[in-house]
């Protein structure tokens, strides 16, 4: 197992590379989902604030 983590002496470079990539993958999913969530909340707030969407702009 420690053989696996030492990666033939390349651990110092290999694991940071994987960590950076993992970070990018996680961050991009997280920010995208948070963005969608906040856009949804914003839209709900506008709806409940009683501003009826004008029907003319549905299919633009």
């Amino acid at each position, binding site marked *: 197992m420690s053989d*696996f983590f030492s*990666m*033939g*002496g*390349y651990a110092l*470079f*290999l694991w*940071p*590379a*994987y960590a*950076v*990539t993992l970070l*990018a*993958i996680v*961050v*991009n*999913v997280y*920010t*995208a*989902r948070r*963005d*969608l969530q*906040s*856009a*949804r909340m*914003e*839209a*709900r707030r*506008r*709806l409940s604030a009683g501003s*009826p*969407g*004008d*029907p003319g*702009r*549905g*299919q*633009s």
Partner: protein
Amino acid sequence: MDWTWFHKFGSPPHVYRLAGVLTPWFAWPAALLILGALYGGLVLAPPDYQQGDGFRIIYVHAPSAWLAVMIYAVMATAAGVGLIWRMKVAHAVAASCAGVGAWFTVVSLLTGMLWGKPMWGTYWVWDPRLTAQLILLFLYLGFMGLRASIDDLSRADRASAVLALVGVVNLPIIRYSVEWWNSIHQAPSVMKMDRPSMPFDMLAPLLAMLLGFTLYFGAVLLIRLRAEILRRERNASWIREELT
């Protein structure tokens, strides 16, 4: 020929719903492929005869570099469609691409440097791939900077679309010129991915990673696209039906 399928892609509510339905179909295969490729790349694949275990950085470097370039191509295509057919949804796609593209350009640079250190003995060498990638990062930053500096959304869409198209015409020339420059100055290049005979158990995880990253980008793009559409269509009536 029936073009209704095409016009449907111009309809925000349709694309919003379709994106919601499709997201898991991209996300789950992406997760499975990436996890499988991690196991294949880190455990099953044999060490390289020259680079030992260090070569395994390829499994994160190559897919990131691929995403960086591919996302720019997707962005420019969407920008072109938006410009030519005046399709708002296409502009929303282009706008959703830039951030992810810039992220993975940075990742490809960082993983390239981490690969370079044990191979070249230094983190940064003016390797043609890394250099071209660095210029690509500036193209992304220019695209995002231009968008951010224009207040009116429709003008920001179209101005940045023109820039993306100019960039995509330039990109091959930049890549060629950088490689040409490198061939003169003879900087070392270890990152030759096109080696003649990569054994199957090394190659398979790489291909799985490439496909997995591509699908992952698809999933992220779809989520970001939905948020973008919601914000752009804030006054449309279909949003009421959609959210209640």
